[in-house]
């Protein structure tokens, strides 16, 4: 091994790295638009951090796939994975370019947040009420996306942000969620987050 720093993420498997890259690229795009909509520098900052992480992941996956290729068959198959990784990185670069639009004086881009709010697949904020039975349960346990079609991109808990929460992340009363999905899905989620309806329970199949 060459001298110098050991690249990050080499302890992860190729599949773990690729899954991570997919998740990060998706959440970065959502966060980038959210930063423009809500004019939030916090969120923009997080996008920049994720962009740097993505570079490291892309470096790691190149090393891992090169090490895994033993035959021509291997190389053909793994090249497909590298193409996907490169695409995920392109998406992350595009998200990085989007947040840079924040540097444009806000008076010069009023149409931007207006326009984004009109978007069909909308990003919205929603608060978990004290009365909601969503609190103190994990996102995975609830199956938020399967139940409502809404994806939780970030959670604001008091002064702290949790970005791209895991299925194991527990929701708390008074959490503010940034969610993405359709209007119908949002209205359905609002029924539960407000405590107007109980979260539906399904029998184990």
């Amino acid at each position, binding site marked *: 091994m060459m001298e110098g720093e050991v690249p990050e993420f080499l302890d992860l*498997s*190729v*599949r*773990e790295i*690729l*899954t991570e890259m*997919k998740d990060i*690229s*998706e959440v970065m*795009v959502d966060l980038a*638009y959210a930063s423009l909509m809500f004019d939030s520098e916090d969120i923009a900052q997080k996008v920049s951090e994720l962009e740097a992480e993505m570079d490291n992941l892309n470096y790691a996956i190149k090393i891992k796939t090169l090490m*895994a290729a033993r035959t021509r068959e*291997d190389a*053909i*198959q*793994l*090249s*497909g*994975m590298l*193409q*996907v990784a*490169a*695409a*995920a990185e*392109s*998406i992350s*670069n*595009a*998200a990085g*370019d*989007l947040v*840079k*639009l924040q540097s*444009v*004086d806000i008076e*010069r*881009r009023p*149409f*931007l947040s*207006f*326009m*984004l709010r*009109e*978007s*069909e*697949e*909308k990003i919205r904020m929603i608060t978990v009420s004290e009365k909601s039975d969503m609190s103190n349960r994990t996102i995975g346990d609830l*199956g938020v*996306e*399967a*139940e*409502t*079609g809404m994806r939780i991109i970030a959670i604001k808990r008091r002064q702290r942000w949790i970005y791209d929460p895991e299925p194991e992340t527990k929701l708390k009363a008074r959490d503010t969620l940034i969610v993405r*999905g*359709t*209007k*119908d*899905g949002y209205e*359905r989620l609002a029924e539960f987050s407000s405590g107007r309806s109980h979260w539906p329970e399904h029998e184990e*199949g």
Partner: protein
Amino acid sequence: MQEMERKLLELKDTSELMMDLAYSSLLYNNHDIAEEVIFLEGMMDELGNEIQKMVIDQSSQGGDVMKSLVVLRLQMAMEEIADAAASIADVVLRGVPQHPVVQMSLRDADVVISRAAVAEGSDLAGRTLGDVKLSSISGMFAIAIKRGKKYIFGPSRTTRVEAGDMIIARGPEDGEKYFAQLASGDERVPSE
């Protein structure tokens, strides 16, 4: 909203749908969905050209240069996302079986994207999404409807489904089959 804003939004919706579809096609090795991505890329190119022309027109007629710059940069970023999505779909369509190292790798979420054509005799034809309660009965949320060459993004409860429409929906894997059968007319919408 002005014409240019409308076109930009359409570009944004298209690029996001492409990204969703591309990753989903990879997860489930779904060629139908991958082909949809390639089709959408053609739309992106056309829309992108129209937007660029409009921006240049407006600028040369003394319009706000800063706004033009913002629009162009937005358009370019969305285009980059769309190109990346097409590149992922390309991997799927090339049909390279996935390497054992990564096989099933992305199959962590149990949410699938599925498309189904609405047949003449389907209960969905001629009714609104809210009327048939598609999401409550099948668990599948319509994220887009393709009608001829046009897409309706983020259809709502009041959107009427027509025979011949292609519904693109997202939901749990076990809702996929029922959704397909509702669209083909093999299953009926339960009466209240």
